[in-house]
């Protein structure tokens, strides 16, 4: 019981996720700045931002639904934290694993986006409404390729558990390379999931100011931002667990390897963010359906064929 609580709350659960999330935000901003010929923030900046926001006054708009407005940031963070316990971080196994946990993780990953939508919707502002509608529209675009890409490796491994999938691929290394198209689809769709450039139109500063989160301030905004950072860690961990399941078998080197893999995924996401202009929502939707989804379908068919041959 106590060990389970420690696993959920401290390591590799919530506390680790939060700290790693802040480190990720620092790395994200820092690499982004370097790519733009800037210096970037000092290492403690994300923590300082977080603490500053915690101490600020929280203003709830008069028109907003106060209950929903308060609850949604926590729902978002809780969903990300819950999803993270099923992703292997320390050792071969995730803290908790069962047959079918990848489905749970994918469902839980949709919750932050839905909370963002509801947060914007219940804020009752013009910009927040437009931002949240955009977030939901994008969700219908990236969700399908992202799900197909993340689930297609499980066809070869014939399991729905992330832990068992990772174990299967670490024993059958050549199969990893079969999933390269899905890997890229997952990276690009994951960028959409995280609402980062070029898919950041829900929070496009120059169009809808801050999008769905425009009315948020103080502690509630801090929690939303934290859930953002944690989501980034979650997506990077999930992608590296599914598509880069290289393991040594010992817990400590594996943990170091986990960090290397997730940071590599992060670097890819940052380079993508810095190298492109923001796509309009309609362009993003047609890009996802025209290019990402066919590649994902191709991967599913390929994996089905490979599976029947095996």
């Amino acid at each position, binding site marked *: 019981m106590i060990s389970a609580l420690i696993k959920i709350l401290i390591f590799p659960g919530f506390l680790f996720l939060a700290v790693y999330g802040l480190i990720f935000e620092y790395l994200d901003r820092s690499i982004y700045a370097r*790519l*733009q*010929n*800037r210096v970037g923030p000092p290492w403690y900046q994300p923590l300082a931002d977080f603490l500053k926001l915690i101490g600020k006054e929280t203003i709830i708009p008069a028109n907003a639904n106060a209950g929903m407005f308060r609850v949604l940031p926590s729902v978002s963070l809780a969903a990300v934290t819950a999803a993270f316990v099923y992703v292997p971080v320390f050792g071969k196994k995730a803290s908790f694993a069962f047959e079918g946990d990848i489905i749970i993780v994918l469902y839980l990953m949709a919750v932050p986006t839905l909370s963002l939508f509801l947060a914007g919707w219940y804020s009752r502002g*013009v*910009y927040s*409404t*437009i931002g949240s509608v955009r977030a939901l529209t994008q969700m219908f675009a990236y969700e399908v390729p992202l799900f197909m890409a993340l689930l297609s490796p499980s066809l070869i491994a014939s399991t729905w558990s992330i832990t068992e999938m990772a174990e299967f691929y670490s024993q059958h290394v050549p199969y990893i390379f079969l999933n390269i198209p899905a890997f890229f689809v997952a990276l690009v769709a994951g960028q959409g999931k995280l609402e980062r*450039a*070029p898919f*950041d*139109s829900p929070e*496009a*500063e*120059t*169009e*809808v*100011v801050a999008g769905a989160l425009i009315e948020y301030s103080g502690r509630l905004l801090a929690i939303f931002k934290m859930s953002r950072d944690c989501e980034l860690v979650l997506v990077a961990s999930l992608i590296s667990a599914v598509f880069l399941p290289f393991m040594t078998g010992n817990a400590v080197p594996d943990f170091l390897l986990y960090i290397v893999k997730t940071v590599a995924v992060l670097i890819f996401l940052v380079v993508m963010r*810095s*190298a*492109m*202009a*923001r*796509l*309009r*929502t*309609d*362009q993003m939707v047609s890009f996802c359906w025209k290019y990402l989804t066919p590649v994902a379908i191709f991967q599913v068919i390929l994996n089905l064929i490979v599976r029947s041959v095996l």
Partner: protein
Amino acid sequence: MSDKTDTGKNRVVIPIGPQHPSLKEPGCFIITLEGEKVVDAVVGIGYNHRGLEKTCESRTYIQDLYIIERVCGICSHTHSTAYCQGIEELAGIKIPPRAAYIRVIVAELERLHSHLLWLGVAAHEIGFDTMFMYTWRDREKVLDILAEVCGNRVNYGINTIGGVRRDLDDYMLDSIQKTADVLEDQIKYYLDLAQNEPTLEARLSGIGKLSKEDAIKFGAVGPVARAAGIPDDIRVIEPYAAYGEIPVNPVTDTHADVFGRTIVRIKEMLESINIIRFCIKNLPAGEIAVKAPRRIPAGEVISRTEAPRGENIHYIRSNGTDKPDRVRVRAPSEANWHGMNHMLKGQYLADVPITIAAIDPCYSCTDRAIVLASENGTNVTGWQELRQYSIEWYKKRGIDVASVKIPDKKIIMNM
């Protein structure tokens, strides 16, 4: 009719401005949306009126130079050039050739920094922050040169009536030359980027269309007109300063959209570098200024220059004293606003900021107080009436400001 009410329900009115991250100065755009499509746009400017033209009438010609320089923070040189050459024409002064060349060099450096600034702003509007950082980094190089040449990064203060105030020495010419070389490579890279980066093209092509006919109809000037294929460049059609002796190739494009305007601006920067190189090579020796009289003979003059944003017109009327009777500034943005409503209609909301930014709007240059003359005569509200109106306006909303006493100074009453 029922159809109208049906669509009316789905419409959302969203204000962009007066305070909005995509606007660098206050302006208000009331956008009516149907889904994400713009069905109507109202352009509201006038938040930045500073009364510069009126101020000019109460100061001497040389003091006005200071005010005219501050019409625009970005293209201050083009305004002071237009103003100076207007007065020089009234006074019958011919500026020395070296002064004319120095004016051209500063004008082209200003064009470089203005276009680099625009490129950064445009990239930021479409969420391409990397390009924004790169262009503004390069813009710093131009500003450094301008600081070296003029002593100021913006508001250069180099023009004076009768010539220029500072001479260029060999060291400065050398550093301008070196910066131009570095910038040329960078600008070529941006041109390549604009033409080959797919997301840039996706966001810029077909946005903010203003065809050749429409550009003529709405009286568009500068890069907006040139992107529609109109070779409208004052440097060529009515050469001023030393432009008559310098080969200038007006850059035009046929895209007639934001993409075309981007290409035109980037190519114009390359052209500016060529002009700067030519000027440095052929810089005549001699005086940099001639003495100008304090009292300017009576008369009126229209002076035109090519600002980075387009044609800039100054009208000056003199009554023979040391103060102008009237100064009228028609900044280029003023001409480009008229087509804005046309450009915005039918766009997606996401394209509104870049469409507005694409004319490189300068809000404070544009804002003027105007008196509308109708058949019933003009309707001018005096200071007292205006004050009474505002008191009643607040009273209606439950605020009584009548208890506040403002001393009615004579100057205010005279307005």
